[in-house]
């Protein structure tokens, strides 16, 4: 087979590289957005995923950790402890605290937990110790980097000074970072002692979460109980409702720009090579052959753009992460496949206008 499409596209290298470069930037944007999305997803749920809690108990109508409020007596933990199958319980209190760090206003997603009980501990500590004392904090690495904080530094929250005792990972939800303190301190900041937002329950070996939840619902019908999996799903759903439409909108705009670039390249090419296409029609090229010539050119441009995008993403992502410390990107094979599928779709959409133009070229134009 004669590589007509490849030769035609290669004949106009400048146009080809400009298009592929533009599409590369689009690909990079989509990959970056998906990477950030994945990081947000993981960062906002890793506390739950890495917790040893099998059941999350909260106030009725509250379904997630991120965007719902729940307040209940800390003493309920003792009652839950007595239920069949429950091994241990621990209460955590989640509050929003505003402060200023190095002159910049910051809203903290503050979690109070019992340092003696492993259920409510932050996911991974990379510097310092998890066994904090009153007046101490554990912050996320992204947060620490963003504000140039190290263990030993202090932050003032609601008029009280807190010393950073440790830096952890897996607490960066990008839009916000989780900060941990003792339950006692969180309750003091809230102004209500003996209050928690969630009770975390771990189960004895052999006990199933579903059975324990059924029993707990009978004894506490006004509360909500979720298995670990359900609670993670609830949080993901909540996060997707808030963040995903924005990401998809930006990705869609990127895709439209990519398709427009491909369309522009091919449309211009069809116009410039109008007589070549007329010749091909005149000497007996079937419509399918010509359609494939356009589609192949579109695919070549799109795939080249995709490769450029992957390379750009690999090179520029670390630079962006350095420039914006609060940002986090997680690249997955799934994201690469999704973007590749999007690029193929862009190739198809980008060929539509050129194919229409091609259909309006008459073989007789070869005599022009």
């Amino acid at each position: 087979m004669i590589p007509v499409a490849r030769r035609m596209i290669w004949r106009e290298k400048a146009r080809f590289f400009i298009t592929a470069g533009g599409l590369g930037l689009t690909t990079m944007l989509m990959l970056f957005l998906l990477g950030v999305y994945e990081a947000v997803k993981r960062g906002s749920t890793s506390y739950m995923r890495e917790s040893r809690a099998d059941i999350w108990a909260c106030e009725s109508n509250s379904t997630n950790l991120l965007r719902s409020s729940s307040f209940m007596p800390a003493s309920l933990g003792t009652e839950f402890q007595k239920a069949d199958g429950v091994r241990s319980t621990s209460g955590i209190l989640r509050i929003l605290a505003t402060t200023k760090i190095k002159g910049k206003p910051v809203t903290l997603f503050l979690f109070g937990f019992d340092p003696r009980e492993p259920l409510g501990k932050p996911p991974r500590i990379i510097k310092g110790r998890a066994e904090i004392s009153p007046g101490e904090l554990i912050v996320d690495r992204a947060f620490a980097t963003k504000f140039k904080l190290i263990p030993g530094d202090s932050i003032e929250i609601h008029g009280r000074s807190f010393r950073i005792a440790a830096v952890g990972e897996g607490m960066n939800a990008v839009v916000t970072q989780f900060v941990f303190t003792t339950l006692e301190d969180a309750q003091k900041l809230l102004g209500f002692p003996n209050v928690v937002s969630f009770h975390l329950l771990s189960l004895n070996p052999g006990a199933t979460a579903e059975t324990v939840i059924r029993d707990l619902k009978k004894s506490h019908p006004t509360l909500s109980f979720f298995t670990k999996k359900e609670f993670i799903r609830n949080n993901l759903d909540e996060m997707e409702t808030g963040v995903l439409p924005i990401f998809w909108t930006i990705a869609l705009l990127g895709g439209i720009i990519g398709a427009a670039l491909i369309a522009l390249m091919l449309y211009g090419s069809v116009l410039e090579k109008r007589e070549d296409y007329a010749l091909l029609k005149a000497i007996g090229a079937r419509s399918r052959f010509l359609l494939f010539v356009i589609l192949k050119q579109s695919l070549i441009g799109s795939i080249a753009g995709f490769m450029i995008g992957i390379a750009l993403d690999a090179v520029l992502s670390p630079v962006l992460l350095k420039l914006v410390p609060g940002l986090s990107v997680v690249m997955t094979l799934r994201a690469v496949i999704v973007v590749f599928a999007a690029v193929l779709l862009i190739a198809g959409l980008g060929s539509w206008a050129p194919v229409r133009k091609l259909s309006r070229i008459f073989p007789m134009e070869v005599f022009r």
Partner: protein
Amino acid sequence: MNGIRHCLMIETENLTKVYFNNSHPSVQAVKDVSLKIGQGEIVLISGPNGSGKTTLLSMLGCLLNPHAGTIRICGRDVTALSQKELTEFRLRNIGFIFQNFRLLDSLTVMENVELPLVLAGIRRPVSRDRAAAALEELKMSHRANFYPNVLSGGEKQRVAIARALVNDPAVILADEPTGSLDSNSGQATVQLLREASRKRGKTVIIVSHDERIRHFADRIISMEDGRVKKEERP
């Protein structure tokens, strides 16, 4: 298709073509043209600009549908064929030569010649061998791997002739084949077309203003205002 190849003639009856402007007939480019052209015959169609030569050639080449009349090529009424069938018919039965050569700049000389074979579904290495043989016959083998932009006008036209002949079509249509060539190259081009007609029995129809072609033709059809004004033998 094979059954109708190497037929005896092209025959048109009352061929008429009207060009429209905003749905209103503006120019009647060809009017009631009836012709009979035999196999192996070289016919020169001449006439002033706007006389309908190229429109007639386009219709004979199945590139343009007439508004009235019929065209029979190789015994087949091509005016009754669908666009898809016409494409297939052109591919197998008609070779084209143009004033501006119309070689694809993005393909090599070899690939340009090979193109009609590839379009006809002939796979490599058969297509390549046949293209090579066609180039050999036209003494262009040494340029096989060059791109057309480095060839002279005469060489380009030889390649175009090789491309027109490679599929072994029954009819060769040439639009001003010497128009972009110097005297020697023009002479050589016409000679090649004559050889194709004499040795291979191709029917060759040439549209040209070039007076030098007249004595190569078996018949000269002069057109004026879309009509055949005169038919003569040189």
